[in-house]
């Protein structure tokens, strides 16, 4: 069972009438993986998610936990949880009643309520909930019944800092237990803390599918350094044809030049105050890729 993909898309194209919203999407999600599905507004993130849930007309193959999903067969989705666009909540029921509607196991439900700190209002009617309260309830519904795959569309929408951290921890914990996640978000820095892979979609097409670790590798080829005399350091780098970018307080250089730089600085009597590998700036990378695509 271990090597069955939690989700697999093979050449999936989604249609509304004759319009193609998603074109030839192919990717897979392994158990425990957390995929960040990112892309500009209108790219097709929600559409892909709805397609996986058997809610759209599509061609190609969607397989969830080894079983094919079609518009008329949602059996494979028994162990799938989802929050699409807005939390699906009946306002005339209490939070708890909303959960009870789907919960198979009382204990599971109670622990989700406490994990998301909803106990104080869970017995109130949901129509009185704030945006974030509704969102948390929607996330709890998606996480009910120990799902094998969870699809979350903009899950952090409206959550305060503490709740965001709680949700993140919860996602990590579930993924450690083997639950796979497909999460869309615009706040990349938010996703970056949990996701293991990025799937980038633009105009209905998947244009990138990469492990986050790979991004980090690329970024780690750059170093960020500060010296006690940046001005002089810059002159020296220029003289020795070392490529760098700089601003008032620091310089960014390539990994390959590190030893040479250290030698030079030592010779010139400049003290190296700090030298760190650059943090992956996914946001910038994504913006660059999209800009490149647009040409």
């Amino acid at each position: 069972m271990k090597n069955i993909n939690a989700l697999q898309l093979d050449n999936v194209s989604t249609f509304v009438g004759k319009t193609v919203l998603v074109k030839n999407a192919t990717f897979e999600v392994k158990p425990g993986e957390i995929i960040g599905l990112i892309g500009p507004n209108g790219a097709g993130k929600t559409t892909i998610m709805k397609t996986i849930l058997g809610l759209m007309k599509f061609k190609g193959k969607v397989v969830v936990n080894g079983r094919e999903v079609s518009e008329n067969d949602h059996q494979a989705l028994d162990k799938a949880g989802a929050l699409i666009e807005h939390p699906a909540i009946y306002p005339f029921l209490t939070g708890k009643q909303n959960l009870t509607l789907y919960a198979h196991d009382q204990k599971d439900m109670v622990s989700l309520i406490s994990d998301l700190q909803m106990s104080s209002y869970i017995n109130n009617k949901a129509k009185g909930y704030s945006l974030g309260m509704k969102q948390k309830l929607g996330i709890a519904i998606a996480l009910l019944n120990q799902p094998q795959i969870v699809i979350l569309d903009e899950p952090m929408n409206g959550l305060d800092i503490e709740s965001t951290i709680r949700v993140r921890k919860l996602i990590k914990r579930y993924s450690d237990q083997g639950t796979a996640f497909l999460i869309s978000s615009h706040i990349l820095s938010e996703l970056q803390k949990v996701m293991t892979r990025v799937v980038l979609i633009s105009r209905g097409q998947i244009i990138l599918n990469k492990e986050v670790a790979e991004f980090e590798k690329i970024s780690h080829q750059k170093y960020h350094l500060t010296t006690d005399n940046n001005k002089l350091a810059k002159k020296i780098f220029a003289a020795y044809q070392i490529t760098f970018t700089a601003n008032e307080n620091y310089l960014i250089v390539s990994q390959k030049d590190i030893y040479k730089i250290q030698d030079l600085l030592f010779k010139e009597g400049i003290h190296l105050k700090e030298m760190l590998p650059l943090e992956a700036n996914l946001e910038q990378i994504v913006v660059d890729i999209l800009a490149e695509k647009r040409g």
Partner: protein
Amino acid sequence: MNTNFKREIYKFSHENIALYGLIVLIVTMTYNFFTKPITRQSLSYGFGTIEWIPLIVITVASAVFSMEYKNNTIIMLEYKTSSKYQIYFAKFWVVLIYSFFLTVIAFLLTLILSMFFNAARYDWLVNKNGNNLLNDLLINLAGALIYSFFSIGLSFMLIMLVKNNAVVVCFGIVLAFFGASFSRGLMQSFPNFIGTIKWNFLNMIFISQQLSNPSLSLKSNLSSVELIIANIVYGIIFVVWGYYLFKHRRV
């Protein structure tokens, strides 16, 4: 019991609309009782209840569907179930049972209210034209129930077609208050086509009065049996049409 049906019952019993429908029924009946002259006919019509039940049913039926779209819960409903058939007909049965429940309440309330009234004037069991009053009331309520079936179908079909609750409710009101006279107007204006026009769906509303009062067939141009069959056939067509639209509607 089917999970979908159980969920529908659970939701419906917690929704205010079910309660409001019941309150509207009780208030209108009581209002009619206190403000309008009480006749044998008004008793047999359950103090206007036969007009109100279908209207309440149309409103409730369209709300039961539109709230799923409004709350985005339709997504959960659809992805968790393979068959849209089950979703649709679970709702259908719930509203039909609710109509039956309203009819029973209307029956009991008619009896209770009439007790406050000088009961000697219209004895429930005294015959008139071979029918006693109790029978008339029951027959009219049965007619209202059949018309409720028609109304649920119409409401489900309309909500799938126009996707707007308010429009469906307005349509229901127009139907309840002007449907019959409009239909009669049509037949009077085109006497040559009465044979066809008499089958128009506006004419179906006669079922709630005509069954106890066969002379009304002069207005409806349909016999009581024809009315019953036509109502059921219309109801089925609407329900199936609504299902077809629902089946092809995407969230």
